């Protein structure tokens, strides 16, 4: 029987010829991930299970990124617990400050995720790796604690929704806009338990960074995973990053989808998600003037080098509007270094921006840019729930890096065309 790419990956990891939507299966995990918020709880579960050693010390990644550099004593204790566990278990992929960055940015960068892998992380945005043609899904700490001990987990094989993006994106429109538009269409519960399979000529043309952005936000529709069929762009990305080669699955032409949705993109404008939900999406021209207090460029959604380049290309030679706090956080030390070399960091500094160390920053209201009551921010991140970046009466608008740049310059939410 015909299978989708997701079904093929899951079948291979369940030791089966065939799986189909709705089946409960047990799969081998190629990489288990946790961060400084979720790892301490996963480690507690691992210990409670009476396990002595992790299932494979090379297939575990522990990434302190949410509250680092440690924002207070309590978070320092969490990272310490994680570090000590990594040392004791001789886990190579624990990333200390200086090496660490946003988990979903650095794992692909370091070649730890390849096409055809099953990756389970105690972080909802683990679905990001679907951009490379891997099956990846977020779970909780107990599930990941059990995986650390056994290397296996159970799953319900998801039904799939096929999204077909037709045409080509215009200037300053890209992966972020496609996914925001899609969220507006599906709603935040539109794909609960399902796979979002991203296809079509418009996404075939997108570079990896934009595909990561799209897969990253699959969970905002409630999806279990988001996935792209890996192509030459994916092959070129993994080249030289790993000693493994990956497995390039494709969906069968007659694979079964629960729904197929065609999305023409030629005339699409930059999209903005208004407070307080990622599916509350409008084209930018439909917005009234929204004056801002802060603009954040970064996160596992849009903290990659291409994102910084696009923003810098608009900001070069201009100044951030008075009263705007413009925060830029490169997603990894490598991106930071490249951004310095290319002069992007200088551009942001010249404009009046501030650069943070690679970490999640203000995205989840942890530190490095918390909002006060009544303040409004435009962010390139993935969630704008009530209180997400600070005070429950603050507001977050989500958009792409070019809109972030234009908004930082004008002081209100602006299309790059406004510059």
């Amino acid at each position: 029987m015909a299978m989708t790419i997701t079904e093929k990956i899951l079948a291979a990891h369940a030791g089966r010829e065939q799986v189909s939507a709705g089946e409960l299966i047990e799969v081998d995990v190629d990489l288990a991930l946790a961060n400084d918020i979720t790892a301490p709880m996963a480690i507690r579960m691992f210990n409670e299970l009476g396990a002595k050693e992790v299932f494979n010390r090379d297939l575990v990644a522990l990434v302190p990124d949410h509250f680092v550099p440690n924002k207070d004593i309590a978070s320092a204790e969490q990272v310490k617990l994680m570090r000590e566990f990594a040392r004791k278990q001789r886990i190579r992929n624990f990333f200390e400050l200086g090496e660490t960055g946003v988990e979903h940015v650095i794992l692909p960068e370091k070649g730890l995720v390849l096409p055809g892998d099953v990756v389970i992380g105690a972080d909802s945005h683990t679905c990001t790796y679907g951009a490379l043609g891997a099956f990846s899904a977020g779970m909780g700490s107990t599930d990941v604690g059990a995986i650390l001990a056994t290397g296996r987990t159970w799953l319900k094989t998801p039904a799939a929704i096929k999204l077909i993006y037709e045409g080509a994106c215009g200037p300053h429109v890209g992966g972020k806009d496609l996914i925001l538009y899609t969220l507006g269409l599906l709603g935040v519960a539109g794909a609960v338990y399902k796979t979002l399979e991203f296809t079509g000529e418009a996404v075939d043309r997108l570079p990896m960074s934009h595909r990561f952005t799209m897969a990253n936000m699959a969970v905002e529709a409630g999806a279990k995973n988001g996935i792209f069929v890996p192509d030459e762009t994916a092959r070129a990305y993994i080249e030289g990053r790993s000693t493994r080669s990956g497995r390039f699955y494709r969906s069968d032409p007659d694979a079964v989808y629960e729904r197929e949705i065609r999305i023409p993109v030629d005339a699409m404008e930059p999209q903005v998600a208004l407070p307080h939900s990622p599916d509350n999406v409008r084209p930018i021209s439909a917005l009234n003037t929204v004056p801002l207090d802060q603009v954040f460029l970064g996160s596992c959604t849009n903290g990659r080098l291409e994102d910084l380049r696009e923003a810098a290309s608009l900001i070069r030679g201009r100044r951030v509007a008075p009263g705007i706090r413009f925060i830029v956080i490169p997603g990894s030390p490598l991106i930071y270094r490249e951004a310095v070399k290319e002069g992007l960091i200088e551009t942001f500094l010249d404009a009046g921006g501030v650069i943070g160390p690679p970490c999640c920053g203000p995205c989840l209201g942890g530190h490095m840019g918390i909002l006060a009551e009544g303040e409004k921010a435009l962010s390139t991140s993935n969630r704008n729930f009530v209180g997400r970046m600070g005070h429950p009466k603050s507001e977050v608008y989500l958009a792409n890096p070019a809109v972030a740049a234009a908004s930082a310059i004008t002081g209100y939410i602006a299309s790059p065309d406004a510059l």
Partner: protein
Amino acid sequence: METRGRVWKFGDHVDTDLIIPARFLNVSDPEELAKSCFIDLRPEFAREVRSGDIAVAGVNFGCGSSREHAPWAMKAAGIAAVVAKSCARIFYRNAFNIGLPVLESEEAADMLQDGGRAAVDIFRGAIRDMDTKRVFFAKPVPEFMMEIIQSGGLLPYIREKQARGV
């Protein structure tokens, strides 16, 4: 196993940031987390909730972050069961894993009133409105997940399996 308590009613799409905001995630002890549970949505919750109380919600309860701190905070605060129209995938899984049962029933979620009293029989999937005496039945839970709840969560379930050599 029947649990009885006060109904705490919530709306649709209550995300895990509302169940417990990230600013409180610098600890992972459930008792500590319970102190900040629903703090931005129902500031009185942590103070007034009693052991055995029932959380009732609309669609897509627990969407957003995978933080298991959310069901832990609810459980440690005293919540004995969640009745919702539907739950987000990761929250649903996390809740069962830590031994917090979730029952999905649109009718019960509509009819139960905030501040009212309800009884939940987890194994029969029965939800009783103790004020109106009406009884609702939840969507059946996969047998395998009921076994997890019977064991008290994923870890005791795995330990039992290991002890039986399965």
